[in-house]
Structure formats: C-alpha cells, structure tokens
C-alpha cells in the first residue's frame, strides 16, 4: 500500500524541524507522506526523534519549522482536541477514576453524542476487543493486556480516521505482545484506519507495518516496506539496526556498472552491489546477512573462515568466525536434514557469498 505520487497524502510532514532548547534539533528536516489506510511505523533507538514526531502529529508539541498536513490541511495551529486523532499511550492513560465504560464513553460525551447511541458505540468498541463484559470494571482491576485492549478501544470508539500509537505494547510480556501485534494488525485491516505506530522493537515494526520509517539522529534513514528494509538497506545504520548483519570495512577499487570491486580490510578482494558508496578509492561498509553466507565456494566472493564459536539455537546454528581480519563474522547454518556440514570449533572452512547479497553502503 505504498504511496505513489499520484495519491494525495493523508498525513504529510513537510520539512519539519523540532528543537526544544533552541540549540539542538531533535527532528531534522523530516519529510514523510502517509496514505489513507496505511500502517506506518516509526522505528528507531531512544532519542531518535520518533516520539517527538508523533507528539507533533497529535498536537502536544509544536513544530519549530515546517508544516504538518492532515488530509491536505495544515494542522500546526489546530489544538489537539480538534484534530480528531485517536491515540494509544505508552502507559495506556486510562482514567483511573472512571470505569471502563466511562472511559470509552468520554470521547463520545465531549462530542455530544446522545446517550443511547453512545452506549451502543461503547459496546461495539468493547466487543471489537473482546472485552464486552468488562464495562463496569475500573482500569486498576484489569491486567496489563486487558488495559491495553481498553486503551485501543478508547482510541477507536469515536471512529477517528487516524490513530497514533506510542509504544503501546512496551509494558506487556513477550507472548502477550506478539499476540497483541496480530490483534492490532487485524483491527487495522478490518477498520481501514490509518495508523502511525512508534516502537523501538524491530520485530514489532516488521510484523505489523505496511511501511517502516527508520529513525536515527532526527532523520528518517530509510522509509520502506519491511522486506525492502531487511533485504535492501540503503545505509549502514539501517543494515545494522534491522536484523543481524555482518559488517566488513572495505575500500572501493573499481566500479563496474551495478557492482563494485572492493579491497576488504584484512586482505580479501571481493565484489559487492553498488548501493550507497562513493567513487574509486573511497571507504565503504559492506553489509552481508548471516544467512546468505554459504559454507562452500559456490559464490563469487570466496574465502576461508576460522570457526571461533558455535551456538546451538535449535532451528539453526550460529557460528562466529574470523574472516579477513574481522572476528565477529556470523554465519547462520540451518539445522536442515543430516547432510549439512558439521562445523567444529577451531577448523578452517570454505565460505562464499554472491555479489548481490553483499551491499556496499556508506562508510
């Protein structure tokens, strides 16, 4: 559901900057277009500016520079309560002095919706998250997962077209978190609302999103669907941040169309896909996924690796090797049927990889 240029963006950040103290830019030149009905995740480490962006969209922070547009209209000067954006907070922010029903009724009351209709909408929303019989409870009487569902229902009960979620699953345990990821994803598909989701958990981002915006240092490093992000990272940060990654430092020696020849530090020569590197003689970072390395010489980049450590992980075996002077080179050996190679610590083995799996990125 990626946005093509002909569609008008439902949410748009146009050259947005944000500074709290007038000295440091927390958000630097943010441009982002989100289509109607899209699920976009802002992913990044703490302090990368993703929550600030969400708060600017919600209206709790003002942009220092630039415009934020909702459905084509700038909303910089519209107060939060008039934006009609649903929001799920990190700590749920369920009002402790109200029952679950009153919590859900609150956004409808402030919109002057009649009592009978209000009750119906509340029940619908509660049923939607399978919490129908909990209307009379207080938030404190609910478990974390139940509170999470109520918070979700409350953000959706007044049928906003845009829902923001600020690390909503952060406080849940792993199993519940994974379960809720699917529930949120299904709700999104069912209701067709636009969701902007903030998280620092990459598996959450990859599971749920149509597109992921990877934030670092106040900028979007890459905005792409989950598979692109993993398989075609555009810079060293994204390659490192998403999934596991082997990093090899190298120097470009020749450019041949789509590929480059490189001298990898430690003496090895190789070929890599030209993605984001400068001309001949410049430094580059090669990114290679551990599962794309083969334990034979069938690929174009061939070398030897010395096995340093083996970790048995059930479905695969994680092998740390010394390759061309880099001793944190990881290879994932699938635990397939009996015919795969059984490595032993200390042995030297053949390894190779294809040029297309090895991306030459910024240094």
């Amino acid at each position, binding site marked *: 559901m990626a946005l093509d240029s002909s569609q008008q963006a439902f949410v748009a950040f146009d050259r947005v900057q944000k500074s709290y103290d007038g000295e440091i830019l927390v958000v630097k030149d943010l441009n982002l277009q989100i289509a109607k009905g899209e699920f976009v995740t802002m992913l990044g480490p703490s302090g990368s500016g993703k929550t600030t962006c969400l708060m600017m969209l919600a209206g709790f922070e003002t942009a220092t520079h630039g415009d934020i547009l909702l459905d084509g209209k700038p909303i910089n000067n519209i*107060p939060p*309560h008039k934006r009609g*954006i*649903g*929001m799920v907070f990190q700590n749920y*922010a369920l*009002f402790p002095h109200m029952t679950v029903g009153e919590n859900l009724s*609150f956004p409808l009351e*402030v919109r002057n919706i009649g009592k009978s209709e209000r009750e119906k909408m509340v029940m619908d929303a509660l049923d939607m998250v399978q919490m129908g019989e909990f209307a009379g409870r207080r938030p404190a009487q609910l478990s974390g997962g139940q509170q999470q569902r109520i918070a979700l229902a409350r953000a959706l009960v*007044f049928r906003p077209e845009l829902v923001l979620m600020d690390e909503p699953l952060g406080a849940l345990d792993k199993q519940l978190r994974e379960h809720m990821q699917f529930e949120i994803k299904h709700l999104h598909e069912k209701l067709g609302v636009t969701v902007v989701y903030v998280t620092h958990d990459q598996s959450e981002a990859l599971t749920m999103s149509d597109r992921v915006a990877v934030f670092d240092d106040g900028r979007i490093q890459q905005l792409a669907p989950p598979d692109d992000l993993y398989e075609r990272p555009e810079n060293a940060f994204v390659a490192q941040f998403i999934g596991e990654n082997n990093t090899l430092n190298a120097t470009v020696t020749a450019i041949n169309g789509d590929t480059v020849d490189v001298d990898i530090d430690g003496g090895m020569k190789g070929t890599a896909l030209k993605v984001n590197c400068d001309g001949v003689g410049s430094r580059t970072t090669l990114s290679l996924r551990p599962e794309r390395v083969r334990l034979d010489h069938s690929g174009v980049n061939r070398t030897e690796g010395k096995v340093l450590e083996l970790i048995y992980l059930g479905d695969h075996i994680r092998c740390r090797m010394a390759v061309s002077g880099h001793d944190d080179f990881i290879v994932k050996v699938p635990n397939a049927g009996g015919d795969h190679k059984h490595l032993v610590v200390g042995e030297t083995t053949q390894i190779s990889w294809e040029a297309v799996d090895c991306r030459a990125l910024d240094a």
Partner: protein
Amino acid sequence: MSDATANGPVLAADGTPLKKSLQRSLRHKKFRALMLIAPLLAFVLVTFVAPIGAMLLRSVENQIVPDTLPRTVVALADWDATSGELPDEAAFAALAADLAEAFDNKTHVKLAIRLNYESPGMTSLFKKTGKAAARRFDPDQPYRQQFIDLRPEWGEVEIWQLLKTYSSRYTNGYFVNAIDMQKTPDGLVMKPDGQRVYMASMLRTLGLTLVITLLCLTIGYPIAFLLANLPMSKANLLMILVLLPFWTSLLVRTSAWKVLLQQQGVVNDVLVWLGVLADDSRLELINNQTGTIITMTHILLPFMILPLYSVMKGIPPYYVRAAKSLGATNWTAFWRVYFPQSIPGIGAGAILVFILSVGYYITPELVGGRSGKFISNWIADFVLKSPNWGLAAALGAILLALVMVLYVLYDKIVGIDNVKLG
C-alpha cells in the same frame, strides 16, 4: 514438608528448639524497637497525653464542694430542692460546722471561687460566712437565724439549690455552662439572652474556619497546580515563595498584617492614594472578622498548598493529554480528568487547614478584635485572665469532640484513605 524429626521438635544449629530460638531472636528485636521509641513514648505521655487527660478531667471534676462541705452534702441529700422551702436547721448546723473547719484550713476561699463560677456574689458570701462561722456563731442559738442575720442571702432558696446541685463529686455543670445553659432544680434551661456567648462564639469559629478553608483552597489550588506543572527551575522559585512565610515567625507575619491592614496602614494608604477611597472613609480591615480571615488565610495557605502539590505532582501529564486527544477541551480535560484525581489533595489540605484553624489562638487574639474572636480565645481567657479551668476544659473538650465528629463525617463522605499528605 516439615523439618521435624521423628523424635522431637526441630532444633536450631546450637541444639535449642527452633521455636524457642526464633522467639528469642524476635524478642530481642522487639525489645530493641521498644527501647528505641521509649524516649519518644515517654515524652508524648508526659507532655501530651497526661496533660490533656488531666485537663479533660477538670471539665467534670467537682471534688471541692463535697470535700469542703461533707456534712452539708449529707444533710442536703434528703432536702427537696423544688419544694420552695429552706432546708431544716440540721442543714444550717452542718454548714456552720463545715465552714468553720474550712475557715481554719483556709479552704473556704477555694470553695467560694468555685461556687462563684455558677453564681456571682458567692465569693464574698462564703468568705464572710466562713469567718463568722468560725468565730462568732453561737452553737446554742438556732443556726438558721444566725445565718440570715449575717447575710440575708442565706434566706433565699436559690443559694441552697445551688449548693445541692453542685454537691456531687463529678458534675456536667461546666459543659452545661459551655453550651449556654444552666442547671436548675427543674432541669436544664437556657441562660438569659444576654449571657449566651459560648455557642455563638463556637458557631462563629466554625463559620470563620470554613471561610478560611475555602479561601485557602481557592487561592492554593492554582498555586499548587502551577507548582506541579511548571518546569523545575521556575517551580523551585515558586516553592521558595510559598515556603518563605512558612519559615517566618508566626508573630512576625501577624504583626506585619497589622501594619498593612490598619486604618493608617499600607493598604488603606494605597487605596486612598489611588483615589478609590476618600480619606475619611478608610476601610476597617483589622481588629475584626476581616482581619482574622485575611491573616489566617495567609498563615494557613502553605498547609493547603503542600498536600495539594504532592498529590498533583503524582498525576502524570499523560492523563490530560489522553483527554485532549479524545476530543476534550482544556477545561473539560481539567474538570473531568485532572480535578477528580486531585481530590485526595483537596481533602488532605482542607482537613489540615480546618483543624489547624478551628483551634487557632494567637492570630485571632492579635488581629481579631471583638468580632473575630475564636472559641480558643475564650478558652485562653478562662485559663489566664479569669481562671475557670473547668469551663475552659469543657469548651476545649467540646472543640475536640467537634473536630473528631467532623473527621468521622469527612471519613464517611470522602474516605480518609483518599487523603494523601505526601
């Protein structure tokens, strides 16, 4: 699974039974805890519980009458006070004997003072009669006539009724007095109009206290809100401004208000200078209720702000944000989401200010004048100026009971669990 062996209780490492060993170690702990709080416990008992208990006892104590006039009390026991007739000769003879003994022991003056609380004029009556009973009364003549010849009051039934009424060892007389009633042989009746002062004063104390509490809340709430929501550096400055008067002597603050509020004071001067007031119609802001209210509100304000602040500090900002994101205006978000969560602070502040205020003494004494006088000022008067400790104790006990009743009421309505002081 128990660690008990087949042939006996579980033993500790040194061979003693485990239970005994556990008790011993705990006893040592308990003893140490008790010793640590012992000084405080002794201090509280000696300086707080005992004096208050002794003072409360004084509100019902009446030993002096039966102790000084033991024979008279016995003689009057059979006398019907409502008959309208004087008691018989035996009672007069008993009183003569009691008074003569009391005069020799010099206890008749104390008795006179005690009975004077109930009916003015008793002091001189008893002093005179006591002296006569010891020196001049002729035991062979009828005592009744000698008494009446000495002071005609002895021929009045009321004096004897009073003696009989207060002949018991304990009396509710002080309390009756404190609620503006008096004891008569026919039961309790209201005092004459001009003498009913204490209940009016009690009601005024409660009324003023209520006004002061509400004013403190009205002024304190926004300040506490700012304190809890401003950035740290500004909040600290504001906090110092709140606490600064707190660190200043109460007398200094009260006197400062005298300077500000008097007719030739700063406030009036400024108003006259601004042309708001004519020079000859300066406001009376001190030595009346207005003075008491203004000054006490200022003095008690921190007691409202601090508990409010501590509760507000604990309300996370995301609740109001959530309310706004759900479509509530600033006011609705405040009123329906923030305010209900700050109620425990309001409860704590209000109860603190109310209880402190209802028993306040120094400030109303200095700036209250006549109309701003609190019940505590009466109590102080009866302790210091015109000693009647029994009445002072009775008024104090009523005040204490009132505060406790209010506390229970408050607990029923707001719930004391909801009160947070910090």
